[in-house]
């Protein structure tokens, strides 16, 4: 119960007023501050003698005084020098017994003092962090966590505060490593994950915290660490996208300016407008800056092999389990281990035999196990470790007797394994499995086809002759199979479009060394003008600056300019040359005249189905270019240009089909290298084979979605008629209805009057109406051509 405060007392006790006055004129109000500070010290001392009592009875509460002093302490650093320490001590010693409001006020005041630079971030964090870990109060934990995160974000706002980050990361690391079995480590995990998401911490040290968390002995901490590796990067990306989305949504400068023109003009609105403009400018600036290079947490691991081994031996196949994980948590760990193995191509042989006992259709969430197995496979896994697994999947899952979902999951699992290590499959099994493409079930059919198309590419000779398909059969005949079928074989990397460059060079007759010299000579200019379109962006390294003396810089610039002009002239003449003699290029679009000949030639070579001898010859010829000489920057620029042109010719309808096929193959390949395999991939199209019950169909028709909360996108779920969907779309777009629609929907009673009268009209009236109708038609509707007609009807 609060007492009433007398009028005189009220005037005196007006701390906010005094606070305002002090802020405007600190020197004049020093005495008042000293008085208040004296009052604070005596009340503080009294409070220390009995920290549990509340001080609500008095006129002045300690809370208010603390608030007042923390707001004004920065004006008198000499007088209030010990104030921050007082607060820190108070909080550290009595945080468990303090009245919640006072406790929160003290935390808030400390943060305020940090903002006013009375204490440094290190002190603040060293105060708050131990409290966060030790306090039993949930609300205090929430407050502290929020303050810690915001302080770390703020201090990393302008530039990365390496010192602070390092000390905080060490604290987090020590928290987990000092006592791996305690559940307190969850705070370190939580903080690291949050800061990773906000891109405040994105270095290897943060990853090492998570590494040790994943290896700790508390189930929650372990799961936290593991889930970070599985989803932390995705979360970070999403957060970044969300940020940019939000900013884009917010400001519409035109609208704001319009509003400013209409509304009453006040200083506040002016400021708002200015702030909005500044924000917009900042955003524009941000757009220009390069996207920050962020490494995935999985790539920042110090020792992936050791980490994966430890994870596996500690959590999945422990001799003496130190922590009990439930199946779900185990699956997370397994996912991470297999992800690591697949991504870094690690060798962890016991992992594959571990899988063996889980690969039965009765195993809960077996699709996740299959997905993990697929993930854990890579080209350096010995095939004999995988063969029993593939065999077991085939035996347990894929049979005529098993359910369609089971069979398709099994086939998909096998395909995922074989896509990464084709040698894990033997001929008879493959031929057997491929037969399932004749299955009646859609899911099984698709899965088997996937397997078939995979082996058409990677091991066509294992298929029966009639299953090979045209391209694969052609390749087999050409004998183009040897390399990929050997264990440990690594595909040599090539430079895309290199053959185009070579051809172009041949045509230009640029073989000599003097051309090469020229290429080096003008590299500066080339790089200058290609900077805008090549997509390379200069990323400035933080902190260090490269010092270049001015005079030299200027001289070089001038030279570069001259060279640029030269290059431009040269290019022009080149172009003319080509145009002059190239009659084949006459029917091509002008955009590609420069290299049409080369591009056409390349098309011919790639499209041609020549015998193997020609192919080999060309291959050997091409490879010499990159291996026998160093490509000059000029060459590289030309290469880029040629590549683009080739892409243009590929866009022509004749090349479209082949290009589509290649793109899908490339997408498939790209997916396999870096992305995770999910249980959904394994389950595949099984849902297509699922016969829905009547209730489910009704539910879906109503647009309520699947009954058991399964998620599906709206498009797939829409079982309404086309008209209904179209109508809804129109309504959603805010478009109006047609006249016919209106007529159809018109209230019956409203149409009655006209219908009654209609039969009783006299002939004269009827004629007038008909005439008017014709007239209206000529005019173009009721109010057609309004401006020109002038006369009324």
């Amino acid at each position: 119960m609060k007492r009433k405060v007398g009028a005189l007392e009220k005037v005196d006790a007006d701390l906010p007023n005094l606070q305002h006055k002090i802020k405007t004129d600190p020197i004049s109000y020093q005495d008042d501050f000293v008085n208040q500070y004296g009052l604070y010290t005596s009340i503080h001392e009294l409070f220390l003698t009995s920290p549990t009592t509340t001080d609500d009875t008095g006129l002045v509460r300690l809370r208010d005084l603390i608030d007042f002093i923390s707001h004004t302490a920065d004006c008198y650093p000499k007088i209030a020098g010990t104030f921050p320490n007082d607060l820190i001590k108070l909080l550290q010693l009595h945080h468990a017994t303090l009245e919640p409001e006072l406790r929160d006020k003290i935390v808030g005041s400390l943060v305020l003092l940090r903002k006013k630079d009375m204490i440094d971030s290190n002190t603040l964090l060293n105060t708050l962090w131990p409290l966060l870990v030790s306090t039993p109060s949930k609300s205090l934990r929430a407050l502290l966590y929020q303050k810690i995160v915001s302080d770390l974000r703020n201090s990393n706002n302008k530039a990365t505060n390496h010192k602070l980050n390092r000390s905080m990361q060490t604290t987090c690391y020590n928290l987990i490593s000092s006592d791996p079995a305690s559940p307190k480590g969850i705070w370190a995990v939580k903080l690291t994950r949050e800061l990773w998401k906000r891109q405040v911490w994105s270095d290897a040290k943060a990853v090492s915290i998570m590494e040790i968390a994943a290896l700790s002995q508390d189930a929650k901490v372990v799961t936290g660490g593991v889930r970070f590796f599985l989803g932390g990067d995705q979360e970070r990306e999403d957060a970044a996208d969300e940020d940019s989305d939000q900013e884009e949504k917010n400001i519409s400068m035109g609208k704001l300016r319009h509003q400013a023109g209409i509304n009453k003009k006040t200083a506040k609105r002016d400021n708002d407008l200015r702030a909005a403009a500044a924000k917009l400018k900042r955003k524009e600036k941000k757009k220009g800056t390069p996207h920050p290079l962020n490494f995935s947490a999985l790539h920042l691991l110090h020792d992936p092999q050791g980490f994966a081994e430890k994870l596996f031996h500690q959590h999945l196949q422990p001799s003496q389990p130190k922590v009990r994980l439930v199946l779900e948590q185990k699956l997370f760990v397994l996912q991470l281990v297999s992800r690591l193995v697949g991504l870094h191509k690690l060798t962890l042989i016991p992992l594959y035999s571990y899988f063996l006992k889980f690969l039965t259709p009765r195993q809960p969430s077996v699709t996740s196990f299959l997905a993990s197995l697929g993930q854990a496979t890579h080209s350096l896994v010995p095939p004999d470790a995988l063969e029993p697994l593939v065999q077991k999947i085939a035996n347990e899952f894929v049979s005529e007797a098993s359910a369609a979902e089971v069979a398709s999951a099994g086939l998909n699992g096998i395909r995922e394994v074989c896509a990464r290590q084709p040698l894990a499959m033997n001929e008879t099994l493959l031929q057997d499995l491929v037969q399932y493409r004749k299955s009646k079930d859609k899911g099984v059919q698709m899965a088997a086809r996937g397997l078939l198309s995979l082996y058409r590419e990677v091991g066509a000779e294992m298929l029966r002759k009639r299953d090979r398909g045209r391209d694969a059969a052609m390749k087999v005949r050409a004998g183009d199979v040897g390399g990929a079928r050997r264990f440990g074989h690594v595909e040599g990397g090539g430079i895309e479009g290199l053959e185009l460059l070579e051809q172009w060079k041949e045509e230009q007759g640029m073989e000599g060394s003097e051309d090469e010299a020229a290429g080096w000579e003008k590299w500066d200019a080339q790089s200058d003008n290609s900077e805008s379109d090549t997509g390379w962006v200069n990323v400035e390294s933080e902190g260090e600056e490269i010092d270049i003396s001015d005079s030299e810089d200027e001289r070089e610039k001038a030279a570069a300019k001259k060279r640029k002009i030269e290059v431009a002239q040269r290019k022009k003449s080149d172009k003319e040359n080509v145009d002059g003699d190239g009659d084949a290029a006459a029917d091509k679009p002008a955009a590609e005249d420069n290299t049409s000949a080369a591009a056409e030639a390349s098309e011919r070579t790639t499209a041609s189905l020549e015998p193997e001898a020609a192919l080999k010859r060309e291959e050997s010829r091409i490879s010499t270019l990159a291996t026998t000489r160093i490509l000059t920057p000029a060459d590289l620029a030309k290469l880029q240009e040629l590549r683009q042109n080739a892409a243009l010719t590929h866009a022509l309808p004749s090349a479209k089909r082949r290009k589509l096929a290649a793109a899908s193959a490339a997408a498939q390949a790209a997916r396999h290298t870096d992305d995770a395999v999910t249980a959904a991939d394994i389950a595949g199209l099984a849902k297509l084979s699922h016969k829905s019950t009547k209730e489910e169909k009704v539910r879906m028709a109503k647009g309520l979605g699947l009954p058991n909360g399964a998620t599906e996108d709206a498009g797939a779920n829409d079982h309404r008629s086309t008209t209904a969907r179209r109508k809804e779309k129109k309504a959603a777009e805010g478009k109006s209805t047609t006249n016919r629609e209106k007529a159809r929907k018109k209230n019956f009673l409203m149409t009655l009057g006209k219908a009654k009268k209609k039969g009783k009209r006299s002939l004269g009236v009827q004629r007038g109406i008909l005439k008017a109708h014709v007239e209206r038609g000529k005019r173009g509707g009721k109010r057609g051509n309004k401006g020109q007609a002038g006369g009324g009807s």
Partner: protein
Amino acid sequence: MGSSTKKKNEKKKGDFQKTKLKVGKTRPTNTNATDTSFAAKSIVLKQQNLGESGRDATTLFNHNLSLLSSKNETQRRDALQYLTAACISFGVANLPQSPGAIIAKAQSLILDGNSDVRTQLLKLLKVLPTTDLGSLDQILLYARAGMAHLSNDIKLFALDIVDWLLVSSPETLMACPGGWIKMLRTFQNLLVWQGEAVNGVVTHGKWSATRSTSNKLGSSKLLVHQLNTLTMFLTAGLTPPPIDPLAEVKRAALVFPLLETQCHLLPAKSEPFGYLNLFGAVRDVESEVYADADERANIFNELGMLDIFKAGAREAKKEAGEVGRAASGLEKALRLAEVG
């Protein structure tokens, strides 16, 4: 037919009649609605057990002592009144509780918001026997807090308390940790005597407003009181306690063959080794105990307070009138320090 219309009318008045809702009006509350708009963090008992029948005086005394922390101010005041009356009626010798215990309970009322409670508190303190007040550092803390309080009433009242302390047991007061320098610092802050600071100084190259020595209140009552109390305080602190030459001789005669017996006896006062501060926090210069008058005078000089106080007293003396008189009294008291 007639019965049916009657029924209809009855039905209309019935329980299930629908209330009409109107657009733009707030919905009428249900008859069985529960008010949940309040939120109480603590339950306050406005009335505590007031029945006084069938209790003896000691229990009543204790009961009233516990009522001092009541939330209700009239109850606090009444309890104080009762205690005052009881103290007088019980007499000095046989109080149910020791004066120290009573003070420990009552001291938090120094900062009480109600002036009636405060005046009543002073009355109670004045009837207490001065012999066994116990440790005074708690009440001294409250007094200091009161002296620096926002409210002028409480400031004045706290000065009254200090006066009472100085009259009743000056030695115990000075033996409190922080009883000397901290008190002086508090006075210094209150009187705004900041050493070299002269009115209208330029600090950090900025002009600050001039400040009149007299208080903002308009009347100089508070200032006069402060000066007077300070004078009393200084006099009490700087005058060495009168030594009775006869007492020593008497004591020696009493225990004739032994010498310095009291040193070997168990000490009679409570917390005899408190001054060693074995278990408390480390004290600084300000909160240290200064046992005798010479020590106090020395530290007073060392910290440069003498000059500051002198300068302040000189300034205050210029105001003449009541303030001037009080200031000249202070100057006299300051001379004690010079001598020491």
